[in-house]
């Protein structure tokens, strides 16, 4: 679908806003852009959402793993102080 056709389906949204939306969606890989001459055609990438969720899953798993290590290290340092073991 061309940008013009897409914009035609959303009369309540201004043309610059439609272009901005399309750029954002392309950056997020939720739409695919194909250039023919000086025209741009857009296609939805339904698989883009699955990738987005997979990205979040891996982000949480990596980050929470770091949280676990950091919290455990802090806890050990704290109990170390209390026991007077002087752990670094």
């Amino acid at each position, binding site marked *: 679908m061309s940008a013009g056709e897409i914009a035609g389906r959303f009369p309540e949204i201004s043309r610059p806003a439609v272009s901005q939306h399309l750029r954002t969606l392309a950056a997020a890989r939720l739409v695919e852009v194909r250039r023919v001459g000086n025209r741009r055609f857009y296609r*939805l990438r339904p698989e*883009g959402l699955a990738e*987005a969720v997979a990205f*979040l899953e891996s982000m949480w798993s990596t*980050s*929470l793993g770091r*949280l*676990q290590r*950091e919290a455990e290290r802090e*806890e050990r340092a704290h109990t170390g102080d209390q026991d007077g073991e002087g752990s670094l």
Partner: protein
Amino acid sequence: MSRTIEQTLRIRARPETVWRFFTDPARLARWWGTAELDARPGGALRVAMHEGPCPVMRGRFVELVPYERLVFTFAWEATPGAPGLPPEASRVEVTLTPDGDSTELTLRHSGLPAALEEETGGGWAHLFRRLGETAEREQAVS
């Protein structure tokens, strides 16, 4: 239609210790990203991650029950190369349950869009509506 990510892990630390890693920016930076936050209901939370396409998370605290439960909204700022539309409807709930000298942490990230309808359906309308809402919110915040 939406889907949820759920992860649970057991941390050998007290809930009080784990809690601080969500509400203290310096500690949050040690596991997630550079953070600016106001740990009160309605307070803003912004986290700039350092990995991959360096996405920036922007949200707002919804609920804070010290050492037990913390809820915030979760959206990505538009970042080239980072997957995902701003899922501004999504929210993250963290619960901490003491278990001996450990804590069981459960993270539920809900409200993630599950699937896009086809071209002929509401797919475009759905995406545009979400983007429109995000733009309005960003203007309201700034």
